[in-house]
C-alpha cells in the first residue's frame, strides 16, 4: 500500500470524512521545503445543520467548535505519521494559525481543498463539495512527502444559482463566479459578513462568534445532502 493510502486510512479512522492531496508549489506563502498539502474534510452532521434554517443556533456553534478540535487532533496525528516516515510535516492547527484582520490565513484551507479536488469555491467564498454542499469543516497539513495528488478543481459548478448571494443577511456576496486564482475579496466582503455574523451569533445564540451559516443552509448542494442524510 502506498504512503497516501496509508495516511488517508489513518485520517479517516481518526474521524475525517474525506482526505485529498494537493500540490501547492508556486502558491503564495507556500514554503519550498513543504510544497504539498493534505486537505482534510469533516462533514457537518445533517441534523445540526438542519437547525440553522432561519438563524444560527447554539447547538450549531457548539458542534462547529467541537469539529475544529477534532480537526486539530487529526492534523497532529497526520503530522506525526509523516514525521515518523522521515518527512517534514506541519499540521496547520487552529492555535498555530495566525488570521489577519480580514480573516485571511497565509495559506487558505480552501485553496488546498480545491487543489486536492475536494470541491470548488461558491459565490459566498465557501468551499462547496458535491456530496455535502458547504456543510463541511476543513484543515490542512503541509509536507514534503510524495503524495498522490488529486485532480485540482479550477472552476465553479454553481452555474446560475444565486441562492447564497440573494439570501445573505449581510449582503456580503458580489455574485461573481469563482475560478482558480480569483481573489477572495472579488467574491465577497468579509467585513460585511463578519459584522452581520457577529450580530446574529450574539442575538440568536448568546455566543460572540462569527457564525451565521445562511450561505451554508441555502446552498442546493447542502439541501441535497440534508435530504439524503436525514432519511
Amino acid at each position, binding site marked *: 500500500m502506498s504512503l497516501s493510502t496509508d495516511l488517508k486510512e489513518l485520517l479517516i479512522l481518526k474521524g475525517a470524512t474525506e482526505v485529498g492531496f494537493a500540490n501547492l508549489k508556486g502558491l503564495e506563502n507556500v514554503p519550498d521545503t513543504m510544497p504539498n498539502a493534505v486537505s482534510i474534510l469533516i462533514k457537518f452532521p445533517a441534523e445540526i445543520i438542519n*437547525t440553522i*434554517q*432561519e*438563524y444560527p443556533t447554539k*447547538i450549531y456553534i457548539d458542534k462547529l467548535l467541537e469539529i475544529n478540535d477534532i480537526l486539530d487532533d487529526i492534523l497532529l496525528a497526520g503530522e506525526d505519521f509523516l514525521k515518523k516516515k522521515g518527512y517534514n510535516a506541519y499540521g496547520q492547527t487552529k492555535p498555530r494559525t495566525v488570521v489577519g484582520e480580514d480573516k485571511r490565513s497565509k495559506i487558505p484551507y480552501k485553496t488546498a481543498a480545491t487543489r486536492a479536488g475536494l470541491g470548488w469555491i461558491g459565490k459566498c467564498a465557501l468551499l462547496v463539495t458535491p456530496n455535502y454542499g458547504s456543510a463541511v469543516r476543513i484543515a490542512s497539513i503541509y509536507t514534503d512527502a510524495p503524495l498522490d495528488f488529486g485532480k485540482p478543481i479550477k472552476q465553479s459548478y454553481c452555474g446560475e444559482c444565486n441562492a447564497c448571494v440573494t*439570501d445573505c443577511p449581510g449582503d456580503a456576496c458580489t455574485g461573481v463566479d469563482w475560478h482558480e486564482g480569483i481573489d477572495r475579496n472579488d467574491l465577497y466582503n468579509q467585513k460585511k459578513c463578519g459584522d452581520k455574523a457577529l450580530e446574529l451569533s450574539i442575538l440568536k445564540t448568546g455566543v460572540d462568534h462569527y457564525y451565521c451559516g445562511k450561505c451554508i443552509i441555502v446552498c442546493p448542494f447542502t*439541501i441535497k445532502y440534508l*435530504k439524503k442524510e*436525514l*432519511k
Partner: protein
Amino acid sequence: MSLSTNLKELLISKGATEVGFANLKEIENVPSDMPNGISILIKLSKEAIKSIDVKGKKEYLKEYDNSYPILDELALKGEEFLKNKGYKAYALTKERVSVPDNKTTLIPFKTVATRSGLGWIGKSALFITPKYGSAVRLITILTNAPLDFNKPITASLCGMCRICQDNCPADAITGLTWNPKLERNDLFEYKKCLNVLEELAENEFHNPNVKVCSKCISVCPNTQRYTEK
C-alpha cells in the same frame, strides 16, 4: 375600534378560534387588486384528535367533514363584512378553490397563516400552532382592505424533533426543517403519502373517497400538549 379589530371580533363571535392578517404582496398568484389576506383558524376537538389513533377514526372523520362548511361560512361572513364596508373581498371557499392532483393550491392557506403570524410549518409540511399543534383547520379571505398585519412567522419551532418523520407510515417526510423559501416537496413527498392514504381507504375505511391518515397530526408533541391538557 379599528376595522381589523371589528372583523376579528365578528369572526371569533361566529366560531373562529384565531384570526390573523397578512400582507401577501410578495406571494405568488395573489391578485394585485386584493393583496391582503385574512387567515381564519378553527381548532379541532381533543376527542376528534384522539380518535385518529383508533381504527375507523370515527370522531375525527366526522369533525373533519363538518369543518368545511363551518370554515366556508366564516370566510363568507368576513367577505360580506368587508364588502359592506366598501372593500373588495373574496373568500377562498371549498367550491371556489380548485385542488390539483398534487394537492398544492395556488394560494396555500398555510402560507397565508404563517404570514399572519399564527404558526409555522412542521417537518411534516403541516401547519403547526404553539397552542393547538396541528389540530387545526384553516381558510383564507383575500381583500384590499387595510388591515393591521401580524408579524409573519419565518422560522420553524420544530428544532431537532423528528417524531412525525419517524412515525410516518409512508416514509414521506424528508426531515428538512422548514423555512419560507423551501418548496413543499422539499419537506414531504406527496406521492408516498398518497400510497398509504389509498391503502387506508381500502383497508380501514372500505371507501375509496376516504383518504385520511393524519398520523403526523396525532403524534406531534405540539398537538399532544393541547390534547393532554
